[in-house]
């Protein structure tokens, strides 16, 4: 089961609200390769994982992705404070605002709400792990400010599974 620590894994302190940025960053929360998808993917796949090592990794990274989900949500929350009507309309944030105002709701930038269709838990270890490779390596497309060059799929995922995860947070706002 899970316990909660009342802190963000890494600090989020955004000085200037920016609904235009929020419109895009929301995919990191509720999109197909976002943190909710990542955590649910790993946490669901761990039951049928074939050995303790893989179960351990899926459990612990799945749990950490929940902390990432929280950080992205904190970013979105801070980006959308004290908005004027003009800012809401001109930023394009109005299409989200009409349904959710400045609440945080798991959705992709395209407007598609989060769905379990974004991940699979097939019960087949190789299929599951290959899906994890596909999902996690897409951070190269989402965070060009961190990645100067495309990295091979395998080494990225290897780094992930060996615990290197500075990549969960978008660039400085």
């Amino acid at each position, binding site marked *: 089961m899970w316990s909660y620590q*009342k*802190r963000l894994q*890494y600090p989020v302190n*955004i000085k200037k609200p920016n609904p235009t940025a929020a419109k895009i960053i929301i995919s990191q929360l509720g999109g197909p390769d976002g943190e909710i998808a990542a955590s649910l993917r790993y946490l669901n796949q761990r039951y049928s994982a074939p050995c*303790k*090592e893989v179960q351990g990794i899926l459990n612990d990274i799945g749990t950490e992705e929940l902390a990432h989900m*929280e950080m992205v949500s*904190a970013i979105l929350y*801070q980006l959308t404070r004290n908005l004027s009507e003009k800012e809401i309309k001109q930023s394009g944030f109005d299409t989200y605002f009409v349904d959710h105002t400045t609440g945080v709701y798991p959705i992709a930038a395209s407007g598609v709400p989060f769905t379990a269709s974004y991940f699979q838990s097939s019960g087949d270890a190789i299929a599951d792990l290959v899906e994890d490779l596909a999902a996690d390596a897409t951070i190269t497309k989402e965070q060009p400010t961190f990645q100067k060059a495309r990295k091979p799929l395998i080494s990225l995922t290897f780094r992930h599974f060996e*615990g290197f995860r500075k990549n969960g947070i978008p660039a400085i706002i």
Partner: protein
Amino acid sequence: MMTEKQKAMDKIRRCAFAVDEARLFLDTHPMNKEAMEFYQKHLELYNKAVADFENRFAPVSASGAVRNGKWAWATTAWPWERSEN
């Protein structure tokens, strides 16, 4: 320039990072004694950092929920506020 509270929270984060990474490594290397000692050592540092923060500022975990005879868990600010970062 970090405030005292930010410094104390930063210490928690550094220790927690070491513990979390060590845990992940040990998930796939359960026989590695050096990693295990690293884990134990930094877990102790983490616990100390949490206790220090909870002593001086606000709850982080269940152990810090009661402060000076008052229930502080939900009555102090939540982590997504700027003031807490």
